[in-house]
């Protein structure tokens, strides 16, 4: 392979020569033909920091003509998952990963990150703030270039001045008082036009500072969750009261609502992280002010945001000259000049102490406030348990905010959930490798028998008739038929066969966070866990409702529109295209737009309900049932054009003469529809409906986007989004595989029943 290809230790195969040919034909890098070492860096930097990184890399490449650095941006979670797939499962991946320090625990447990302590001299390391270097189990794994991700209070000085305030609040009491002054209904129509405070308060990360200000913390020294306490109850009440008693925050507020409101000058204060401040400084509606989160006068504690170090991790398979090149690059990217540039442009906190002392940094009020805030903060735990704790806090906290749990119940629930999820995180590592496992043996045996049976069937029913012919089968016709189907079949099955069996094998294994590289077959245990989980049945029923409602509405409305469009109408072409538009625009943006339209106060849906029908506003995204209905409405909208097009195609296959003949015989329109349209459209519609059912059953995107990953309280899920959330998030690969396979089995059962009922494989004539 050429030096430019990203895989570090390519696996030699017999087909290598053929593959290299393909590679030469298709690989972009080999077309460049330049003898350079290409180093890959994956990062989740938002646009402003990305610009600085691009500059730095360009300069580095200028001074190092033999090095080319390929940057690849992915979102935070995506970059972590992609890095894990590439390193843990294929021993490849990029040379460097940039990210927050909370990646550390999981990367170490999976054994996919390189210890760095021997690659740097003691003097080099001594130049860093110790918080900028991430150690775990006595090894150094991350070199930070920034202390960040901490929340602080952003406020709009202009709006403060309008009500006669000249400083930010200093206590939580004041926060409420100021908030009340700044919450204004300008035109007296009962809708608040300016809120005192906004922030993404339904997300635990944004709640954490208040929990800490009442004296709570997420885990004890042994990494056990500590969430059921007085502090949690008080903090829950505090946030709930801000909304319900004091009315200074909107009823519904996610990140984007908060961000938009503050940025357009319709909210006076915002709690947001270091990554976001640069944007507000540029906003024409905001006179930017930054303050430390105000002290909790009841406890005398400051709200403590989580602080993460952002920095570089190295690929564990790096060695030799390439490793030296990477280390040199890292030293440059975390070096004083790089850090200074980030700090002076983006007001980040450098990890190099020397840079922090430079006059430009000392005289920068934002960096100084930021440093002040960091002093009150807590370091983000880097152990993998933290992920389980977030996943436990989210539903409990959202249930409290939604009113379905009291603060006390919420605190108890999050503790119980956290303990359960921590256990799930480490499940599988207690499997004794030497123990005799009957269930596993049976699985092996069944696998072998199944393969023998499949080969036998293939020979008897497929190969033999084609070669020798059997009674009732015309050899010539058969061969022609098989020849015509073969290319498509090869394409399709070539792609799915390996993933299918891989998934099947993993579903019998204990693969999880700590057993990615030494998993073993343990039998049916994962399936047992799936079918004994009551949530499985809960979401199964939801999935059925989701599928039936969606597909029915798609088909009914789609066919109806197609029949209307089948009339000779002036302007039909335009109408047709307008009706198809929801299919043409990518759903990942329209689904988010729908989410915006379901906003309780400002969404178009509620405004139309109110002005046209005089209805009370519906809390679409706060109430679990409504959130589910919102997702269904969005998906109905998305799916109609597809069915309409299919139906339009199907209608073309119906000869007009049939209708004319029927009309002469005096058949009513309804009779014509029932006796002619429906039966003749069937061969075209049934495949589309069957596949519609299948796709809808497994449609993870729409539910995910509309409910923002299952909110409120992780209840807005169908099976496939639930397994994504509950299993992949906690690295439970074996469990996820078994769960996915169960989804597949149920779907296969239902759709084959459906097909038999509708006789889909038979022909119309």
């Amino acid at each position, binding site marked *: 392979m050429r030096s430019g290809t*990203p895989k570090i230790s390519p696996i030699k195969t017999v087909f290598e020569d053929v593959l290299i040919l*393909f590679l030469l034909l*298709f690989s972009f890098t080999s077309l460049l033909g330049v003898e350079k070492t290409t180093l890959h860096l994956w990062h989740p930097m938002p646009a402003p920091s990305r610009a600085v990184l691009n500059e730095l890399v360009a300069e580095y490449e200028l001074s190092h003509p033999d090095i080319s650095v390929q940057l690849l941006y992915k*979102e*935070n979670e995506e970059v972590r998952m992609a890095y894990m*797939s*590439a390193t843990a499962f294929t021993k490849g991946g990029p040379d460097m990963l940039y990210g927050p320090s909370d990646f550390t625990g999981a990367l170490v447990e999976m054994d996919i990150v390189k210890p760095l302590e021997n690659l740097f001299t003691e003097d080099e390391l001594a130049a860093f703030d110790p918080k900028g270097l991430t150690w775990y189990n006595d090894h150094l794994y991350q070199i930070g270039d920034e202390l960040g991700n901490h929340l602080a209070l952003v406020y709009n000085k202009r709006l403060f001045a309008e009500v006669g305030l000249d400083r930010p609040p200093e206590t939580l009491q004041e926060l409420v008082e100021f908030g009340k002054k700044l919450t204004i209904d300008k035109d007296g129509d009962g809708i608040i036009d300016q809120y005192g405070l906004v922030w993404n308060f339904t997300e635990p990360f944004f709640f954490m500072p208040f929990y800490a200000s009442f004296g709570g913390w997420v885990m004890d020294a042994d990494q056990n969750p500590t969430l059921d306490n007085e502090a949690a109850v008080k903090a829950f009440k505090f946030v709930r009261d801000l909304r319900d008693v004091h009315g200074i925050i909107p009823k519904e507020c996610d990140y984007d609502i908060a*961000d*938009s409101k503050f*940025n357009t000058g319709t909210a006076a204060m915002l709690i947001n992280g270091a990554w976001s401040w640069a944007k507000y400084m540029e906003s024409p509606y905001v006179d930017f002010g930054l303050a430390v989160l105000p002290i909790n006068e009841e406890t005398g504690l400051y709200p403590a945001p989580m602080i993460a170090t952002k920095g570089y991790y190295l690929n564990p398979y790096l060695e030799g000259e390439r490793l030296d090149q990477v280390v040199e690059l890292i030293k440059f990217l975390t070096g004083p000049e790089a850090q200074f540039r980030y700090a002076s442009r983006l007001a980040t906190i450098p990890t190099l102490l020397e840079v922090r002392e430079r006059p430009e940094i000392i005289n920068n009020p934002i960096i100084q406030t930021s440093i002040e805030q960091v002093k009150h903060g807590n370091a983000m735990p880097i152990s993998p348990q933290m992920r389980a704790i977030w996943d436990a806090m989210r539903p409990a906290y959202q249930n409290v905010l939604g009113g379905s749990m009291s603060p006390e119940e919420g605190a108890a629930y999050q503790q119980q959930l956290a303990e359960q999820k921590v256990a799930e995180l480490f499940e599988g590592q207690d499997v004794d490798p030497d123990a005799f496992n009957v269930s596993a043996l049976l699985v092996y045996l069944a696998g072998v028998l199944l393969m023998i049976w499949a080969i036998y069937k293939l020979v008897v029913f497929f190969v033999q008739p084609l070669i020798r012919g059997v009674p009732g*089968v015309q050899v010539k016709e*058969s*061969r022609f*038929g*098989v020849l*015509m*189907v073969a290319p498509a079949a090869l*394409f399709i099955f*070539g*792609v799915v066969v390996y*993933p299918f069996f*891989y998934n099947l094998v993993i579903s019998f294994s204990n693969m999880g966070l700590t057993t990615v590289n030494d998993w073993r077959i343990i039998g049916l245990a994962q399936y047992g866990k799936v079918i004994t989980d009551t949530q499985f049945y809960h979401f199964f029923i939801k999935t059925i409702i989701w599928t039936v409602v969606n597909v029915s509405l798609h088909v009914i409305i789609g066919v109806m*529109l197609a029949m*209307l469009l089948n*009339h000779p*109408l002036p302007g039909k072409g335009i*109408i047709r*295209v307008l009706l198809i*538009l929801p299919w*043409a625009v990518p759903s*990942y943006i*329209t689904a988010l*737009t729908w989410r915006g*339209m379901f906003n309780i*106060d*400002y969404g178009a849906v509620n405004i139309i309900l109110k002005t046209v029908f005089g209805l009370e506003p519906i809390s679409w995204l706060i109430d679990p049932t409504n959130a589910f209905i919102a997702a269904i409405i969005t998906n109905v*909208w998305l799916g*109609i054009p597809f069915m309409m097009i299919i139906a*339009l195609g199907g209608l*073309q*296959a119906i000869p*007009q*003469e*049939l209708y004319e003949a029927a009309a002469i015989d005096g058949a009513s329109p309804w009779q014509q529809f029932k006796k002619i349209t429906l039966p*003749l459209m069937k061969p075209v519609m*049934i*495949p*589309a409906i069957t*596949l519609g059912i*299948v796709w809808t059953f*497994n449609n*993870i995107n729409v539910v995910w986007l509309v409910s923002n990953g299952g909110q409120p309280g992780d209840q807005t899920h169908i099976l496939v989004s639930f397994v*994504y959330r509950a*299993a992949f998030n906690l690295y439970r690969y074996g469990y996820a*595989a078994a769960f996915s*396979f169960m*989804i*597949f089995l149920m779907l296969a059962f239902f*759709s084959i029943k459906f097909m038999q009922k509708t006789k889909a*494989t038979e022909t119309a004539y």
Partner: protein
Amino acid sequence: MKKTTPLQYIMIYSLLLVAVAWSIYPILRVITISIRPGDNLLNESLALIPDDWTFDNYVTIFTDHPLGTWIWNSILVTVTVVITGVALASTAGYALSRFRFPGREASLLSLLVTQMFPATMLLLPLFIMLSNLHLINTYLGLIVIYSSTALPFCVWQMKGYYDTIPYSLEEAARIDGASRFMAFYKIILPLASPALVITALFSFMSAWTEYIVAAQVLWYEEMFTLPIGLKSFQANMTTEWGLYAAGAMIVSIPAIALFLFLTKYLIGGLTLGSVKG
């Protein structure tokens, strides 16, 4: 069909108007976001055209990002997928509709079965497979996966449509001396143009807007297809909404153009006088 009365016209148009309004309103919102200055997803104003509207986002997206390259890459991948899809689905669907051969029912069923794998089951092993086959950072890997995603539906769709075309047409052609393939190619295929249009549209859409697999396969920004390029404007908590919406509209334009072009054939393809029911 019988004459449509004026009253029926009014009813049909009013129904269609409601449908059109519901269909395009959310898309108009996307356009609104794309011409709004600043990066705000939400706005309390319901006005579709903001007072301070601007095309800055469209300008930025073309000047600051290699959008031309991404569009070209997307076209390359998509066109290949569409050609593959149409060629393979029209032939396979025909065989499945017309011939009885061993494995026919099984292939039809298993085509459907391949659609039932939840995404959670495929993503990781697909990546491992592509990686072991050295198809990471190639378009070949993408094309194969996209084709195989689109094909099952297309094959079924073609098969269903062929089923509505009477056998007598080919039989007549065969009696006139056409080969089996010629009868298919010259007689049946043109009659199936609505289904071919659907096949083409569907293959196009599955390749044109896909980003999850593409994000796993392509590691170079110059190699990006349009949807992953677009995804790079989206970030956890710092999405550049204006650019994202503008990008989404740019992604949609070729799709809309194709719909406009192809739906003509969706309607006009048949000379049904020759077909007896």
